[in-house]
């Protein structure tokens, strides 16, 4: 699929419902433009630009070299991020960050178990101490409370 043409199609597909929604917000009067005036303008410009990209002949497209893609690692990495977001407030910063780092270090970056566990533990504890304890950033503690007095 050609990138430019694809982008053009996306633009048209996005702009059409936007234009319709903008019309519903109300375009207003010259004295007091409605909430829909600006998005409608943008959507119209997008429709024009998108159509140009779709219709105009696409010249030099780069050939796509997919040979060296590492989709498995990409997928694992993405999954670890999704889990991080889903579990952060339930499990707390320390556990979630540690687990996410472990997955990244061991499965994505292929480091040894020993160094992965060590780095993940160190990084999550140190960042918790620096941000939560010293800088008082609000991070969820979750299952592991801070030792008393901290």
């Amino acid at each position, binding site marked *: 699929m050609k990138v430019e043409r694809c982008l053009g199609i996306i633009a048209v597909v996005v702009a059409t419902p936007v234009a319709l929604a903008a019309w519903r917000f109300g375009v207003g009067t010259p004295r007091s433009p409605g909430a829909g005036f600006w998005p409608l303008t943008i959507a119209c410009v*997008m429709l024009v*630009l998108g159509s*140009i990209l779709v219709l105009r002949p696409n010249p030099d497209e780069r050939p796509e070299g997919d040979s060296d893609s590492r989709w498995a690692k990409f997928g694992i990495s993405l999954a670890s991020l999704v889990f991080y977001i889903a579990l952060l407030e339930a499990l707390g910063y320390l556990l979630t960050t540690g687990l996410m780092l472990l997955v990244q270090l061991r499965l994505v*970056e292929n480091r040894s178990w020993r160094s992965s566990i060590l780095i993940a533990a160190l990084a999550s504890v140190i960042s918790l101490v620096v941000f939560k304890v010293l*800088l008082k950033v609000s991070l969820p503690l979750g299952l592991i409370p801070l030792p008393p007095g901290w």
Partner: protein
Amino acid sequence: METLNLLLQGFALALTPANLIAVFIGAFIGTVIGVLPGLGPTATIALLLPITIGMEMVTALIVMAGIYYGAMYGGSITSILVNIPGEAASVVTCIDGYKMARKGRAGPALGMSAIGSFIGGTVSVVAVMLISPFLAETALKFGAPEMFALLFFAFVCIGGLTGKSRVQGLLMACFGLLLGTVGTDEIQGVDRFIFGTLYLQDGVGLIPLAMGLFGLGEVLYNIEKRQSVGEVLSTPKGLMPTLKDWKDSAWPIIRGSFLGFGIGIIPGGMPAIASLMSYAVEKKVSKHPEEFGEGTIEGVAGPETANNAATAGGFVPLLTLGIPTNSVLALILASMMMHGVTPGPLMLIKWADVFWGVIASMYIGNIVCLILNLPLIGLFVRMLKVPYSILSPLIIMFILLGSYAVAGNVSDLVATLVFGLIGYLMKRFDIESAPLILAFVLGPMLENNLSKALLMSRTGDPLFFFSRPISATLISLAFVVLAFPLLQWAWRALVRPGVAAIKPR
């Protein structure tokens, strides 16, 4: 002469041991939080507020000011080396700074941004000192029509901010504008494109957008395509820019200083906007605009100068009118009130010593920051200098931590992930992200000020913008810039062939 006397008194106050230590602490903390993505000066100063109450008034102000401009210095380090904005005002530095780093020119990029920051900061402090009260009055004249004219001018300048394909660049700008319309409309109160969520009522956040598009997108791309092991962080060898760098950066730094100061004193003018505008202006006036986005030093020097100039500029309306132009300055105002000092026109009369002490400390502070960011930069770079297989997971950790810490909201993390995926796709298919982010920041302001100006005009007549001197000048300038390529084209298309046709005879 009197100014000099007062300034000397100010230096006497700023050079007392306690205040000198305060300058160092402020500048150091500022640089550190600038380097750490997500943790910005607003959050830091909010956390330190209770501590500042116990301090002497001047000392407290010196520390807080130091954190503010220190963050502007530190933010560029992360932008250049990791392609994550360490601070919102350094978003634009990612574009060319990071490209420079990839070409092995991280050193000059870091060096020039520190030097530019120093010059911008210092020029701005001089301006604050000399013409504060006068300038504050002028800044107040910037109402909605003037702001609209200024933004319109900026947009026209950005128009050329597209790389390979103009249509594609404009389309990305449109996506940015569209993202900017998400949330409750500021004039009518209508919820636009929020899909029933509370989170989107305030619109898409700049931090998740920038962190996702620049930071996470880059990391994900490297995970999929592992082709740049070790390239992401080339150790800066020699920070001194070459003679050519100096020549290229001289004008951007000069322009950035004045532009940044000007933006800083306008209500609502934040350092982030100053750096974006500077980038747009540099690209427009450059003789080789096609090099912007490919790692050109002007794209680093100008914006980094401008954001520092804007921080100092912001102290003008704060100290002379009691009007904080952004949230950091609002916190500084709160702290001053706690000490029983009311900034305003009386500040220079009733608390002259405080005013001059702070001004003097800003001279010293900029020197401290320069030292921290040139000879001692290794200290901060080391924070970011580890093998990539360790660094990549740590960068992810910082991106997530930073996105969450801004407002303690998981939704920000979701947004960062979504934009990270988009950033990855854009990177993979070689689509420029600069027009998107610039349009995203400036678009809502353009719309807002246009609506306000039209409401004020009472008739909705576009000629209203020409009835006011400042907006008339700016809009006319914008049309000149717009018309320029047209004239050029007309010259080439009509006159030159004619000339060429005549010549052979």
